[in-house]
């Protein structure tokens, strides 16, 4: 029933914005006008601190203007005033749902300027931890999406998985969230005794739980379909134009994954697919995320099967002084293309560090896509972007 109702809505949604607004003549006749409304910065459903200035015509959004900066901690300025290794914990706190990718991007960028060889085992462990980190971010993001739609149970299952991965991460890195594990030249420590077996056991279990605990619970649910199908619909041209990366781009059907098309580290040796979907709406982003979790599981299994031996730390020397120049590296974080630009002047501290966080760029779609949607559709669209406050504000 609900799904049927939405189908008629779908046709209206694809019409241009002006077609959905109240007829201007009628509006003038009855003296109706649009109203401005603030959503946030502190809003129970918001993914952090974000203020949206909305202009509403009835319940339809006419204009959406995101105001950011409520969690701006000036990461770039702090990075300029610290020695190279001391920046790594700062990067951890950019995207606190997917920290490993943040460390990895910075380390790769600095290593471009350093004369250091990364041991193969360190490379493999970096990729392994990155994939765990991706699962750790993707699964709760599904939970958040469902929570915003009013379903409380999936977030509990999602956080159960996140907690279990966090326990694995704690054994490996010593921390549950802010790992500081990937270092310049390698990783902090080797995997503890018996860890690969433990990881294998967990991954097998997750693969079995994915169907009953997530897919069966979400897919085919009438309310989920009604709230997500056709919501946030965008064309691939629009997505490329807006500079989207990650799941928001791939759910429109454009095949782009930094791991595949700009391979780095151990990903050159791995066999995996880029998950895409053609629908380009919130439901498609959910399917992409589940598909990516499956691909991550596949990658983790491949890494664990052929884990090379040897050292986990290359020789960087005691004092890290990269050569003068630009070090630019990009990695695929759970939210898209995360790039780091390090400018070195040959001293102990970076001259300039620029973080290209995927959230900041992906959030531009709020300006472009939200107008024409209903007010309650904003939350599923936020679920499509899956932004993290620390990452969009830096």
């Amino acid at each position: 029933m609900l799904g049927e109702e939405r189908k008629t809505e779908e046709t209206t949604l694809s019409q241009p914005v002006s077609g959905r607004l109240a007829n201007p003549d009628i509006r003038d006749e009855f003296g109706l006008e649009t109203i401005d409304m603030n959503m946030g910065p502190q809003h129970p459903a918001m993914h952090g601190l974000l203020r949206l200035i909305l202009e509403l015509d009835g319940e339809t959004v006419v204009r959406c203007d995101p105001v950011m900066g409520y969690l701006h901690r000036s990461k770039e300025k702090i990075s300029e005033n610290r020695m190279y290794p001391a920046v790594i914990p700062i990067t951890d706190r950019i995207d606190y749902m997917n920290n490993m990718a943040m460390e990895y991007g910075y380390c790769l960028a600095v290593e471009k300027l350093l004369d250091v060889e990364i041991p193969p085992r360190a490379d493999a462990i970096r990729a392994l931890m990155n994939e765990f980190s991706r699962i750790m971010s993707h699964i709760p993001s599904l939970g958040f999406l469902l929570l915003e739609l009013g379903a409380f149970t999936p977030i509990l299952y999602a956080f159960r998985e996140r907690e279990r991965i966090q326990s694995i991460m704690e054994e490996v890195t010593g921390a549950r969230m802010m790992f500081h594990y990937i270092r310049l030249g390698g990783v902090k420590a080797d995997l503890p005794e018996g860890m690969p077996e433990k990881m294998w056991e967990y991954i097998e279990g997750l693969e079995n739980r994915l169907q009953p605990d997530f897919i069966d619970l979400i897919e085919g649910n009438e309310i989920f379909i009604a709230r997500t199908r056709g919501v946030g619909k965008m064309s691939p041209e629009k997505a490329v134009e807006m500079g989207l990366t990650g799941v928001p781009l791939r759910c429109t059907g454009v095949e782009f994954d930094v791991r595949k098309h700009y391979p780095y580290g151990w990903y050159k040796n791995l066999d995996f697919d880029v998950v895409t979907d053609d629908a380009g709406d919130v439901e498609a982003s959910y399917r992409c995320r589940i598909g990516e979790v499956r691909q991550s599981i596949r990658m983790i299994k491949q890494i664990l099967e052929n884990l090379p031996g040897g050292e986990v730390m290359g020789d960087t020397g005691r004092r890290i002084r990269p050569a003068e120049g630009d070090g630019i590296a990009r990695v695929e974080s759970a939210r898209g293309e995360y790039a780091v630009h390090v400018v070195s002047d040959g001293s102990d501290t970076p001259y300039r560090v620029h973080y290209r966080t995927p959230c900041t760029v992906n959030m531009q779609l709020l300006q472009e896509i939200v107008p024409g949607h209903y007010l309650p559709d904003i939350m599923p669209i936020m679920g499509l972007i899956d932004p993290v406050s620390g990452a969009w504000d830096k």
Partner: protein
Amino acid sequence: MAVTLPEGNLETRLSRYLDGFNNSHGIEDSLVEGDLVQVVVGPEDLPAVLTTARETLGILHLSFITVVDRQGSFELTYELLDLRGAQVRVKTTIEGDEPVIGSVTGIYPTANWHEREAYDMFGVAFRGHPDLRRLYMWQDHFDHHPLLKSFEISTRRTFEGLR
């Protein structure tokens, strides 16, 4: 798929990009290294160079814009990706303390927030930007551009002794 992504092998694409820039613009310096094409252009040529990249060469993605305060001049890096393995880096330097450069939002709409961030952090004015407001800092009562080297932070650690 409606989006046309480039095909062919990497080397031919890289040389095609470089030739494309060389044929239509005065390039100050260029470099091809690995999967990267780097060109250095004058600030007044920059929007035209990026138009060539987007329209003629079909490079679809603007990854980011980095501004570096060189104390007396500003170095801007525009990082473009063709989404299939090639990186194109366009660099330019603006002399002086009050940098002004043409906006590329008409060419790459994604540049909108990148330019707002550059304006916020460095005070780089982008000519022709539709909505040049600060991105992170307060909209009013705040006159500074925090990432300028002249903006000192109070708990600054310099590590002078180690140098």
